[in-house]
């Protein structure tokens, strides 16, 4: 049984009514109707995920934003469950998974192509995409231990720890099936370089900036600088000291034919 958790958080009531109608007709068209529940302040996503398990659902579909998907993934935790995603707003994850809009996402769910992909975890928080660290203004020394094999130190301004990333052109970085986290640490750059490379910086393709370090690890323990915020989609999910770890093939995700990995 499919269990759809709809999170209208980022939509106005009018927008939500419009997408809800498209959603219902798409689910009906592709014959993947199931239980559709709406997350509210009273019925939170973790509570709804528990309901899904209680109803012995085989698939939970997060309908909403990337934040909705992450909340569902965290509520499911390490338990066995296939997860689908129907984006209601623009989403990088949807592009990576080969999903365009609601009807196409519904079709993808109907085809049910399930791929085991890597999940990452910062402290106890599970994430699919990437953790950002640092700000362009502050140069600080980062120190971390990786895979119980080496200790690394570097001065950096911006960095990213990537499990999955949307790449505009071919890149091996951000492949959620490669079994590694890609760590990018960019040193300070001049204002002129920052201006010239503004598109690269905005997309966090730091490896395209000279003097950026690129490492691939399965686990890293970030020690210094203490209290450094680690953010996911602009939201702080942890502060250093923190442990970031890859859980290979830990997520069973419904993916589209046009997926980027």
């Amino acid at each position, binding site marked *: 049984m499919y269990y759809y958790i709809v999170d209208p958080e980022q939509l106005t009531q009018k927008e939500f009514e419009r997408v809800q109608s498209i959603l219902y007709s798409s689910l009906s068209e592709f014959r993947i109707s199931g239980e559709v529940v709406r997350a509210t302040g009273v019925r939170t996503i973790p509570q709804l995920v528990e309901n899904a398990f209680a109803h012995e659902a085989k698939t939970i579909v997060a309908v909403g934003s990337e934040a909705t998907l992450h909340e569902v993934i965290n509520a499911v935790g390490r338990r066995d469950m296939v997860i689908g995603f129907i984006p209601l707003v623009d989403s990088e994850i949807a592009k990576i998974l080969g999903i365009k809009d609601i009807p196409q996402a519904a079709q993808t769910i109907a085809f049910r192509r399930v791929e085991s992909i890597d999940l990452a975890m910062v402290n106890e928080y599970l994430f699919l995409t990437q953790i950002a660290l640092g700000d362009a203004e502050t140069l600080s020394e980062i120190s971390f231990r990786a895979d119980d094999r080496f200790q690394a130190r*570097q001065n950096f301004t911006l960095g990213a720890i990537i499990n999955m990333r949307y790449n505009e052109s071919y890149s091996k970085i951000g492949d959620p099936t490669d079994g590694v986290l890609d760590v990018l640490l960019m040193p300070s750059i001049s204002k002129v370089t920052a201006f010239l490379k503004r598109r690269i910086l905005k997309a966090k393709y730091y490896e395209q900036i000279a003097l*950026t370090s690129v490492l691939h690890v399965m686990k890293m323990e970030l020690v210094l600088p203490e209290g450094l915020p680690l953010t996911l989609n602009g939201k702080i999910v942890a502060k250093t000291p923190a442990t970031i770890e890859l859980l290979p093939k830990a997520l069973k995700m419904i993916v589209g034919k046009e997926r980027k990995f």
Partner: protein
Amino acid sequence: MAKIQEHPDTVVSSSMRIEGELKSNGNISIDGVVHGKVQTSRDLMIGPNARIEADVNAANATIAGTIQGNVIVKGALMILETGKIIGNISCGTLSVREGAYFSGACKMNEPKLPIMEPQE
């Protein structure tokens, strides 16, 4: 059989310092400082500013910086003008540019002789 995943290139920039074992299935490029061990099944590039105090193991290697340690390369080892190796090397083929420094023993794989057809 499980597919061996080749990782993207590893880059240790000039401002990075690593202590321990740096291991990869992809190419490695080092411009910083590494103390410990460096190992890759692919190509290794040691930049002119790099300082390596480690044993090094790679498929092919180009050295423009300083290595203090033993170097084992299955294929081609190239020491550039600015390159410096203090340690023993073992390689398939060796090329040393004028100005490079090398102090240690060198062992090379003997090339296989072509099989000659018997003449009638």
